[in-house]
C-alpha cells in the first residue's frame, strides 16, 4: 500500500505514522538536549528552590507510575481471578507499565542532584524511609514488568525469524506469569500507596500529613491506569490496522473504571470535607490554595468535574459508554484528572511556607512555575513514552486482542494459580 503511494506521489510526502514519529523524535531530541543542559549546569537551570524543591518532573514521575497501574490490575484479573479473556488487554497494560516505569526512572535521574549516585539508593539502606521503600518497589517491580513483557518480544515475528532461540527463551517467561502477577500485585499496591505516604508522613506539612493520601493515590491510580490502557488500545485500533481490539472487553473495563471513580470521589469527598472544619495552621492555607487559590481551577474543573464527575456519568451509562468517541473522551479526562491531582497534591504542601516562630505558627505562600528547561526535558520524557508505545503497536503487536484465541489452543499458554479454579 505505502509503496504504491510512494510511486505516485513526490518522495518527500510523509505518511501519517512518519509524521507522528518525526514529531515525537523531535521532542525526544529536544528533551535530550535539555536534559544534557541539566546534567551539565545542575538544577540551577530549573525554577525549583529550597522552598519548592519538587516540581514538574516529580509530577510526571508520579503520573507515569499512576498510569502504569493497569498492569498490576489486569495481570491480577487474568492470573489470579481467572478472567482469562482479558489476557490480551493485560499484555497491552504490561507494556504500558514498563514504559511508564522507565519514564519515572528518567524523571528521577533528571531530578536528583547526583544522578551519578543513583545506585546509592540500592546499596545504602535506610529502612525507615518511605522513599527507600519506594526505591525498592520501583526497582523490583521494574524487573517484574520486564519479565512480564519478555514474551511480547519473544512473540514478535522478526525476533522469531532472526533470533529464534532468544525468542523461545523470552517466550518461556510466560510460564512465570501467575507468580509475577502475585509479586506484581504486592509491589504495585505497596508502591502506589507509599508514593502517597511519601507526602502523607510529613508532619511539617499539615496539608499532606494524613493517612488518606496513600488510599487516594492507589484508588486514583486504579482508575487512571486501566483508563490509559483502554484509551491507548482504542485509539491504536482506530488509527492503524496493526492494532485489533475486542470492543466488548474494553467496554466492560470502562464500566469498571467508572465504578472505581465513584469510590475515588467518595474517599476524596470525605477527605477534603473533614479538613474544612476548624482552623489548622498550614492545613487550612493548603486547602485554600486548592479550593480558592491558584490551584482551584485544577481542583474543581480538571480533577473533580472533568476528571471524575463527567467520566462517571459517561462510563456508567451504557448508552453513552457505547459511543466510542464519548468513551475515549471520558478515559482521556480520567487520565488528565489524575495528572492534575498529582500536580496539585505535590504543590499544595510546598507552596505553603510554615513559620516556626513561637508566637506565630502561621503560614505564608510561595509560588512555582516550571522553567523552559523543565518543560522541554519533561516533554521529551513524555514523547519517549508515546514513541515507545507507537513502536510497540507497530512492531510488537502490543494491541492485538485476536491473540486470545490463538493461545487458548495451546495447553500451556495460560498458566494460572490454583485459586482461580
Amino acid at each position, binding site marked *: 500500500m505505502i509503496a504504491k503511494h510512494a510511486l505516485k506521489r513526490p518522495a518527500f510526502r510523509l505518511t501519517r505514522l512518519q509524521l507522528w514519529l518525526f514529531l515525537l523524535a523531535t521532542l525526544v531530541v529536544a528533551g535530550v538536549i535539555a536534559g544534557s543542559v541539566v546534567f551539565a549546569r545542575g538544577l540551577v537551570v530549573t525554577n525549583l528552590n529550597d522552598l519548592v524543591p519538587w516540581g514538574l518532573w516529580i509530577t510526571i514521575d508520579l503520573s507515569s507510575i499512576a498510569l502504569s497501574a493497569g498492569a498490576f490490575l489486569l495481570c491480577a484479573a487474568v492470573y489470579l481471578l481467572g478472567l482469562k479473556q482479558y489476557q490480551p488487554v493485560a499484555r497491552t497494560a504490561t507494556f504500558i507499565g514498563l514504559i511508564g516505569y522507565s519514564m519515572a526512572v528518567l524523571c528521577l535521574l533528571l531530578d536528583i542532584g547526583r544522578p551519578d549516585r543513583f545506585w546509592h539508593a540500592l546499596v*545504602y539502606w535506610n529502612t525507615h524511609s518511605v522513599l527507600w521503600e519506594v526505591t525498592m518497589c520501583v526497582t523490583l517491580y521494574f524487573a517484574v514488568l520486564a519479565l512480564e513483557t519478555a514474551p511480547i518480544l519473544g512473540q514478535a515475528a522478526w525476533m522469531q525469524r532472526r533470533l529464534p532461540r532468544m525468542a523461545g527463551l523470552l517466550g518461556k517467561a510466560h510460564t512465570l506469569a501467575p507468580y509475577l502477577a502475585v509479586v506484581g500485585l504486592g509491589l504495585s499496591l505497596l508502591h502506589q500507596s507509599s508514593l502517597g505516604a511519601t507526602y502523607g508522613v510529613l508532619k511539617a506539612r499539615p496539608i499532606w500529613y494524613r493517612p488518606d493520601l496513600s488510599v487516594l493515590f492507589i484508588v486514583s491510580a486504579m482508575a487512571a491506569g486501566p483508563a490509559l490502557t483502554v484509551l491507548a488500545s482504542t485509539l491504536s485500533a482506530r488509527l492503524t490496522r496493526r492494532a485489533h481490539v475486542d470492543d466488548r472487553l474494553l467496554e466492560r473495563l470502562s464500566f469498571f473504571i467508572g465504578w472505581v471513580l465513584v469510590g475515588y470521589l467518595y474517599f476524596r469527598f470525605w477527605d477534603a470535607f473533614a479538613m474544612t472544619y476548624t482552623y489548622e495552621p498550614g492545613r487550612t492555607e493548603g486547602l485554600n490554595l486548592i479550593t480558592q487559590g491558584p490551584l482551584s481551577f485544577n481542583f474543581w474543573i480538571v480533577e473533580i468535574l472533568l476528571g471524575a464527575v463527567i467520566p462517571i456519568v459517561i462510563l456508567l451509562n451504557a448508552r453513552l459508554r457505547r459511543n466510542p468517541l464519548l468513551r475515549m473522551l471520558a478515559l482521556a479526562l480520567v487520565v488528565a484528572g489524575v495528572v492534575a491531582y498529582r500536580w496539585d497534591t505535590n504543590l499544595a504542601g510546598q507552596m505553603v511556607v510554615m513559620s516556626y516562630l513561637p508566637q506565630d505558627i502561621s503560614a505564608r505562600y510561595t509560588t512555582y512555575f516550571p522553567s523552559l528547561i523543565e518543560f522541554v526535558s519533561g516533554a521529551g520524557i513524555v514523547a519517549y513514552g508515546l514513541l515507545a508505545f507507537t513502536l510497540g503497536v507497530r512492531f510488537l503487536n502490543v494491541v492485538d486482542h485476536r491473540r486470545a484465541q490463538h493461545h487458548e489452543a495451546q495447553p500451556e499458554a495460560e498458566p494460572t494459580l490454583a485459586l482461580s479454579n
Partner: protein
Amino acid sequence: MGTKTFKRRSFLKTAGIGVVAVAGLRMNGRAFSGPAPQGDSSHQWAMVIDQAKCTGCGYCTLACRAHNDVPQSISWNRVIHAGKVKDKDVFLARPCMQCEHAPCVEVCPVGASYYRPDGIVMMDYGKCIGCRYCLVACPYGGRAFNWEEFTGPNPAVPTWGQPEVPRRPRGVVEKCSFCYQRIDRGLAIGLKPGVDEEATPACVVACPVGARKFGDLNDPESEVSKLLADHSYYRLREDLGTGPRVYYLPAREEVSG
C-alpha cells in the same frame, strides 16, 4: 506436575540468588562508605540562645559561612526578625535544631542524614543523592540544596575566619553541624567545648553580646545545663515532637508560657 515443581523451584532459586546479590551489594556498600565522624555518647551537645541579648547583628551567620565554607546563597544559621518587645526589636537566630527525633534522618532513603551518639544530626555528603526529601520534611527550613557549584573565593573568608571543612559538591543537601569539626578536634587535644573557643561552634564564638551558649547537657556544671535549670526556656515547634537541642531564652518571660 514434575516439570511444574521444577519450574517453581528454579523460580525460587532465581529469586534467592537475587536476594543474595542485593545483600552482597549492601555489605559491599558498607565498605564503600568511609569512616564518618561519630562523636561520643558521653556528651549531649546543646545550644542555648538568649533572645533578650541578641541584637540581630548577623555575625553568627557570617562566622558560620567562613568556618564551614558556606556559599552566599545559603545560610546554615539564619537570623530572623521575630517581633518587638516594648519598642525593642527581637530576633530569632536559627541554626539546625539537631533534633532528637529528626524528620530529615527518618526520611532520607540512603541514610545520608544520621545521628551521632553525641546528638549531632550529621550529613554524609558522600552518600547524599540529592533527592531533597529532607528539605521537604524539615519543619525549620534548616536545610539547603546546592543548586549550583560553589566556586571562587568565599567573601566571608578571611574576615570572619578560615574554612575548616571541605566545600560541598553541587547536587547535595547541606546544613549546620554544630561545628562538629571544632568539637572533635577540641576534644582530641583536651579542650572543653563551650568553654574553650577553639572547641566551640563558630557562631557562639563570634556572637559579640554573648547571646549564644554551647555545652554538654550530660554535664550539670556546663553553662547550658545551668542556664536551662535557672531560666524558663522554649524550643521551636515543640508540638511536632522533634525534640530540638537548641533552646531559646525568650526576650520576655511570658513568651515561654
